[in-house]
């Protein structure tokens, strides 16, 4: 169980030396309790304190790393619902490669996934993993596939190989690469030793909760905590419920055997079913999702969902403050101003587009706040808007001298005109949905 700030305070030296960077031991204890500081910052912590806090500060869901530099860290989650705080480590998305599929297809799969990355709202979205499934008897095919991936990719690697000798030889090709080993059968002592020897993690599969708990206990007892859990159940409903049960057990009951990231491998149906299952599991705690085939449209959709679900609800996504071209604007097209809260930007730009008008959209830096919040917080005020418009040299980019502000900040129009000599400020509509009718009713440029 987590210790309270007061519990932690009792374990500290109570000298208020400040060497940890926090003025008092009490404040430091509070920070540890909120997981904003670690005991290791205190040079005088007793062994007793370390032991007590070590057990208590073990995260309810372990962080597990797969791969080296370009690899993936998953887990470390602390809440069941993103609105309670946030989800921390976005789901790793991977592609399955079967060793029976032939070298040509394997090369093509690797090339496609490796080269696929896309910018969305200022974030680079890409896949994180390859999952090699050894479904032939041909050891050479496994070794070849591993080599091919290693040659051209820094993504994490998960290997599913039921043949022990082939697996050992395969892993020898990956020194220092922290692969994950996917087990089709129940965990054995030798698996623990093998994983520990090369710092690999294990994906443990079980069809019942009890079986899964026993296997992870065995691994933990054997000193291995880089575990990933796979408890698929029957159909999508089984997967969702198992994930919910495992995660709730870990977070609400401190049930250590289930305090690990969760795994999902998507069956090879058509892309539509694959996407539906992936989307549902992404929302319900899957830290790793392995897709059966490369499909750009599917990946793009799933990346976008991952971006949405893993956005910190307290830190809205921002778009870059600058002038955005909506449609195909010319220097004579109208100019709109708004804030850089991503949702505001999306809705406003979408509605301008819907109106059929091309326009310049000036997006001011309001630290990601929406129009009214930013105005109230002094971030979307005449002085700052005028300065931004001067900084970006808008006068040189457009011929019009009319600028449309959101209807909710009508009160700033006079002052903004004073600060922007030569410009006429037009008060727009309050709701973005009304932009299409607004542009019809007012001459804007």
């Amino acid at each position, binding site marked *: 169980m987590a210790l309270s700030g007061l519990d932690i305070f009792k374990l500290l030296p109570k000298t208020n030396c400040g060497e940890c960077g926090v003025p008092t031991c009490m404040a430091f204890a509070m920070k540890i309790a909120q997981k904003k500081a670690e005991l290791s910052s205190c040079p005088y912590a007793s062994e007793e304190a370390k032991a007590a806090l070590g057990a208590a500060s073990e995260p309810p869901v372990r962080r597990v790393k797969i791969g080296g530099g370009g690899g993936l860290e998953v887990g470390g989650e602390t809440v069941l619902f*993103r609105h309670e705080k946030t989800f921390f480590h976005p789901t790793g998305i991977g592609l399955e490669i079967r060793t029976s599929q032939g070298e040509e297809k394997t090369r093509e799969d690797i090339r496609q996934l490796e080269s696929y990355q896309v910018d969305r709202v200022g974030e680079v979205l890409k896949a994180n993993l390859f999952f090699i499934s050894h479904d032939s008897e041909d050891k050479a095919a496994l070794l070849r596939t591993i080599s091919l991936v290693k040659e051209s990719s820094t993504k994490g690697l998960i290997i599913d190989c039921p043949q022990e000798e082939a697996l050992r030889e395969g892993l020898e090709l990956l020194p220092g690469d922290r692969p994950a080993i996917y087990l089709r059968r129940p965990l054995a002592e030798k698996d623990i030793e093998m994983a520990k020897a090369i710092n690999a993690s294990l994906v443990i599969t079980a069809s019942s909760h009890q079986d899964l708990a026993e296997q992870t206990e065995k691994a933990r007892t054997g000193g291995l905590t880089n575990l990933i859990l796979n408890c698929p159940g029957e159909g999508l409903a089984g997967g969702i419920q198992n994930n919910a049960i495992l995660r709730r057990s870990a977070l609400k009951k401190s049930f250590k055997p289930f305090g690990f990231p969760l795994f999902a491998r998507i069956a090879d149906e058509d892309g539509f079913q694959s996407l539906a299952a992936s989307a*549902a599991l992404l929302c319900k705690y899957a830290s790793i999702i392995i897709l059966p085939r490369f499909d750009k449209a599917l*990946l*793009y*959709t*799933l990346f976008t969902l991952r971006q*949405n679900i893993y956005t910190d609800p307290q830190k809205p996504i921002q778009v870059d403050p600058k002038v955005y071209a909506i449609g195909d604007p010319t220097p004579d097209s109208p100019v709109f101003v708004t804030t850089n809260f991503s949702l505001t930007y999306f809705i406003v730009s979408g509605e301008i587009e819907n109106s059929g008008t091309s326009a310049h959209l000036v997006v001011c830096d309001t630290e990601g706040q929406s129009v009214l919040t930013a105005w109230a917080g002094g971030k979307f005020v005449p002085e700052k808007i005028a300065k931004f418009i001067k900084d970006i040299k808008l006068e040189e980019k457009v011929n019009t001298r009319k600028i449309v502000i959101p209807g909710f900040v009508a009160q700033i129009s006079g002052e903004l005109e004073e600060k922007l000599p030569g410009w006429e400020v037009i008060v727009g509509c309050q709701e973005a*949905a009304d932009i299409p009718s607004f542009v019809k009713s007012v001459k804007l440029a």
Partner: protein
Amino acid sequence: MSFEIPRETNPGKIVEVTIGATAAQGGTRSRSVTIGGSTALPFYFFEGLHPHAPVVAMEVFDRVPAKYPDSLREYYQDVLDSPGEMARRCVDDFGAEMVSVRLEGTHPEKGNRSAEEAVEVVKAVLAAVDVPLIITGHSHFEKNNEVMRKVCESTAGENCLINYVETNNYKTIAAACLAYHHALVAQTPIDVNMAKQLNILLADMSFPQDRLVMDPLTGALGYGLEYSYSIMERIRNDGLAGDRMLAFPMLITPGVECAKVKESRAAEKDYPSWGDEKRRGAYWEIATAMSLLLAGADLLIMDHPRAVEVVRKQIAEMFHSTKEEGRGSLRT
């Protein structure tokens, strides 16, 4: 180490709302549809009841929406101007369990059709299909009130779902629903407190609880989905925890929201990294629908036939696999 499933029993239960009326119930529908009734989080069959599976409706309209996507046009091209025909296609060919009639063409700036014309459209759809109807209006208060009042009156007995009222404009339409016995959607902009407040206002009018559906407003994938998702999760959690003013079934609108989004419809040749636009159009709607189903959606208004097929199949499989084995396919 022995493990026991941590089951949570919720004090609350989501209200059951029935839409549509058969001849025996005073209408002309072949069957009615019931949503709600859950006592646990969506698809958590292991700790509660879900007596009714979420329902998928499809949408027809009195005016083809501006920028109607090509990916949908190919399914409806020949019937876009005929709401009755389009409704029949949605039900017979695409499996719609309900039909929403969107009366956007009555908006003063979008055609300004009269209330009488709207009634004709609704009647044509009622005659063409025998599933329960949703009647969807718009944000022009004055005109919408006039249209909805007439539509409510002329469909008396059918127990339609009238979509929607909002905080600044609910009395006229709610009164019409009371008078002519229809169910009602209370729409609020992605905010738990505003949702609750509107439900309380409606309760103050003695609007019956078992005829009320909430629409917390759908943000499409990539366009505010995360806000809708979290607001819906909070509303559902609060409803199950016993807040009766939040314990209503929830409506979402992935169809119309995704159709607006450039990323769901732009061609691959212009945006190569977005992938094939034909599949992407359906994918966008599927991802929006599936994630919001997990957040608590009970009724979905969708557009893309392929997305409808896939989402209905997923819902059916999830309900089937778990009903057969009681507590579901979970082995402890």
